[in-house]
């Protein structure tokens, strides 16, 4: 997850390097740190450093990290010759290294030599059974070959070992969602996200059982970034599943997300509006459900109007009209 400040810094550096202003190494380091996929840029700017002996020697021992980063970027851009060269250089420097072996297996993968890559990964896993990257490559390979059920199986096995890997839980949830709309797969996806929320090591646990809400203990918004993103995902899943009970739960999740984000999250605000509208359609005549949270949805609607006035005035008439039609705005 990339924070706003980090994203701004990344874009600034990217612009600087793109326009010949230097700072390539800082940019590449940041991309590595944030684990982003910017392969074209990495390839271009990384290779520029590696091809220039002066810049390369300035890196000292970091040179090898750069070779690795460029090799991976090259594979992503299908510049397999560049990747091969980088890997060759690395294997000369670190003969017999498993980390280099991993890159060689990835190269097989990039070439589409699936069974050779699979053999290589299996061999590497025998030496390093807890190498998360290798485990994940096997999932990626299954997915790339269209073997979605294989990918799911691999991921589930991976998660039994590495339960706290949020990205893997998210990937599993997304695969389930992509498999089909509105059926039990969605329920499993919702479960994945529940696991995720419980896995968060630094976030104070936020208990939101399906039938009740609890108090939140917040230290800072930054800590809750993961929670917010996954809470949003979960409630979108619930909304998509539909049905009165799911909508009411979704609305509660939206409400807590609004709380956590100080009312600034557009998806949460729209979400409350959509849920309220859908609930009022489904719950016609059941006045208890209709009356619940009337103030919240009207506040959400007003917040949306205010935000658009400030930041997106051309869209204001559209949004106001939409909210008026939903009877959330007078």
């Amino acid at each position, binding site marked *: 997850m990339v924070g706003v400040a980090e994203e701004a810094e990344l874009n600034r550096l990217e612009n600087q390097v793109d326009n010949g202003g230097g700072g390539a190494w800082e940019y590449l380091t940041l991309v590595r740190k944030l684990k982003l996929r910017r392969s074209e840029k990495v390839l271009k700017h990384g290779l520029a450093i590696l091809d220039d002996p002066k810049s390369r020697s300035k890196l000292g021992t970091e040179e090898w990290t750069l070779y690795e980063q460029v090799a991976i970027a090259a594979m992503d851009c299908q510049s397999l010759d560049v990747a091969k060269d980088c890997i060759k250089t690395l294997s000369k420097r670190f003969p017999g290294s498993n980390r280099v072996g991993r890159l060689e297996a990835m190269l097989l993968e990039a070439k589409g030599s699936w069974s050779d890559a699979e053999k290589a990964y299996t061999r590497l896993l025998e030496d390093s059974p807890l190498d998360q990257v290798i485990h994940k490559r096997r999932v990626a390979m299954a*997915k790339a070959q269209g073997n979605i059920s294989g990918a799911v199986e691999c991921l589930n096995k991976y998660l039994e070992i590495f339960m706290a890997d949020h990205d893997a839980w998210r990937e599993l949830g*997304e695969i389930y*969602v*992509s498999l089909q*709309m509105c059926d039990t797969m969605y329920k499993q996806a919702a479960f994945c996200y529940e696991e995720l929320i419980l896995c968060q090591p630094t976030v104070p646990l936020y208990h939101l059982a399906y039938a009740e809400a609890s108090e939140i203990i917040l230290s800072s918004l930054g800590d809750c970034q993961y929670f917010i993103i996954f809470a949003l995902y979960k409630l979108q899943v619930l*909304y998509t599943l539909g049905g009165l009970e799911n909508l009411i739960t979704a609305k509660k999740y939206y409400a807590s997300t609004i709380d956590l984000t100080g009312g600034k999250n557009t998806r949460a605000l729209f*979400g409350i509006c959509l849920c309220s509208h859908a609930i009022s359609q489904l719950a016609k005549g059941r006045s208890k459900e209709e009356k619940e949270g009337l103030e919240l949805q009207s506040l959400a609607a007003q917040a949306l109007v205010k935000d658009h006035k400030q930041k997106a005035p051309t869209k204001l008439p559209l949004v106001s009209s939409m909210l008026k039609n939903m009877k959330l705005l007078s």
Partner: protein
Amino acid sequence: MGGEVKFQLGQNPYIKLVLHALKHRVSSVNGILIGRLDDASSTVDIVDAVPLSHSQIGLLPTLEIALIQVEELFSADGLSVVGYFHANERYDDAELGKIAKKIGDHISRYFPQPAVLLLDNKKFEALCKGIHREPVVQLYTKDASKGWRQAGIDASVQLTLKEPSANTVLSDFIATEKYEEIVDFDDYLDDISKDWLNPRLFK
């Protein structure tokens, strides 16, 4: 309305959708097609498109908010939602997946004979290598049994590019990396100051 409906794809929507797919190469993307039906010629004129999402595509809220706003905005000009565009995550996946079909069904409630366009990765690759003939999308329409049918041998009659130079213009836009500028509905929901109408794209 006798006979099959034909679809004419304008240059602007065509370019917007392909650029959107290019911007988010490693994920699926989708978008909404806007246009009008000309009863006399049984032709749906696709005049614009709104790029929708590039992540978590199977979920309803973004789609619903977008459909509401899009219908409202374009109805003032006598236009409506007439179809859906989808690009698969993987290069060799040439099938119209379950999510795309479901969303197509959802859009059929707004417009009974929508066009569902699927990005054809192989044709698109050919375009990038300089071979400019057909549109780089596959057309799917709803058939009598309510399933989605790919336009077959009569595809080039059923779906045409309105401007014959569309592929050339598209290639230009790709060469100048214009796809970086595309804003979709997801981007707007993350930052409402971003405009999903992409007003400056063709200036």
